């Protein structure tokens, strides 16, 4: 199998998602079948083909350097589950 449970754990850590053992095993199995399906792209020669990041060929889209009114502090914090003294309150770093 291309993707092991250990790989799933590593990806989960990168993606910042906590998974239990059952989930890890289930995902490992599903990922393998999905990635197996994606393998069909390997059969297509794309040498010399440019990637398409944007379908519309826009470039140079800007705004002028003008300042607008910011959100009032209470609006900025309104949706925060926890806040204190005007700050968002988050979990400790270490």
């Amino acid at each position: 199998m291309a993707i092991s449970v250990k790989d799933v754990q590593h990806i989960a850590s990168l993606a910042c998602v906590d998974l239990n053992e059952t989930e890890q095993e289930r995902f490992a199995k599903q990922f393998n079948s999905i990635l197996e399906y994606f393998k069909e792209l390997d059969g297509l020669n794309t040498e010399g083909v440019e990637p398409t990041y944007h379908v519309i060929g826009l470039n140079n889209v800007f705004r002028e350097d003008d300042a607008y009114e910011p959100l009032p502090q209470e609006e900025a914090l309104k949706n925060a589950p926890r806040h204190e003294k005007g700050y968002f309150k988050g979990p400790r770093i270490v």
Partner: protein
Amino acid sequence: MDGDGLEGSVIIGLEIHCQLNKLNSKLFCGCSTKQQGLEPNTMTCPVCLGLPGALPVINKKAVEYSIMVGLALSCEIAEHTQFYRKNYYYPDLPRGFQITQYDWPIASNGILTVEADGEERTVRIRRVHMEEDPGRLVHQGSIETSKFVLVDYNRSGMPLLEVVTEPDLRSPKEARRFINKLRNILEYLDVFDGSLEGALRVDANVSLRGGARVEIKNISSYKGVERALLFEISRQQNMKRRGVKVTQETRHYDDERNCTITLRTKEQAEEYRYYPEPDLVPLSVKSWEPRLKATLPELPDARRERFKKQYSISDDHAKVITSEIRVANYYECVAGKCEPRLAATWVADYLKGELNYRDRDIKDAFEPEKMIYILEQLKTGIITDKGAVEVMRALLDEGGDPKDIILSRNLAKVETDITKAAVKDVIKENLEAIRDYKDGKPQALNYLVGKVMKKTNGRADPAEVNLLLRELLECT
């Protein structure tokens, strides 16, 4: 590092992040860049708070400023440039990714020369790129012991320019000079105010020749750069001496404790999963180059050369004066109205000296008009050098008007008559010294000058007293 025989064995590369804080608005939204010192989270909007659905739009002027910096550093401006997402989690990053540049930076392959003990060192600039600043974290006590973190997103989205050098620097002192020079150029370009806290932050790569490279993150003061590098180099040297291998890692600089601490090792390297920012379209702005080149102001090196020619001042003076745009502007203002060489001495030596002593910036000094007045008084002999220094000190410490200071402190030189009278008195009262002088003891004259100075409460000009004394003694 100088003189300890280790020059050349130290290899330093810098990544310098400068806030383009002279812009009106942030990099991708219309929040003001004047967010310093505000209440937390009072300069935010859906874009810089990363609210779902909000979209970034590039500040055109930020791109122009970046090109100007690129040009000032002799870089090539990219035909094509674009933004990427740098994906990582941290509480200061409201979207879970930072919008930055990766492949295709706005400018690359530049140079900047710095003074390196008697010679000029050419430091290659690998790239200059634009990115957004994250928010600011506040810890209760230290980062290790705090039970929670407080987050302020006022800084989030501040426009940053990252200047990355090749590993061409050879000592902490050179690194400091490089940063000072870069700061100076950015201030000449009027895109940056380096006096604001946190306006400039540095990551440094350090290694001893042949050894592993260590990255030091988060050096946030000008002075910190040299100190952090000195600490890190001696740490690596000690390891080498003990036969311990230096490992490739990322270390965090602790300014307060003046040391570096392991942040992560090579094995724990971040995976940033860079990919092009789909909410922004690419830029093709090389065509702006001629227009922006034409608007570039005179830069420090050019100004230094011009000052030497135009004002006939010494290279040392020209260097000191042009190494800070505010000092250079101040000087030009004064030199336009006074004797330029006199002005150079008084600005570069005296005023800068007094400011350094007070750890103050020229923008906190008195107006150039006041300096012009002082120098006029000095030139016409109203005040002495000593008096001029006293006026300057009074202006720096208490402020006020130089004219009033001269009057209230009795600094104006006494009239020549009074000096003459004092000289005559001294001659009458010190016959013995006069005899000594006439007997060929020239030091007796100094004694007499001292007596006159004492009689005039120091307001007489010693040179003039000297002259008068000799004249009178010749005739008696």
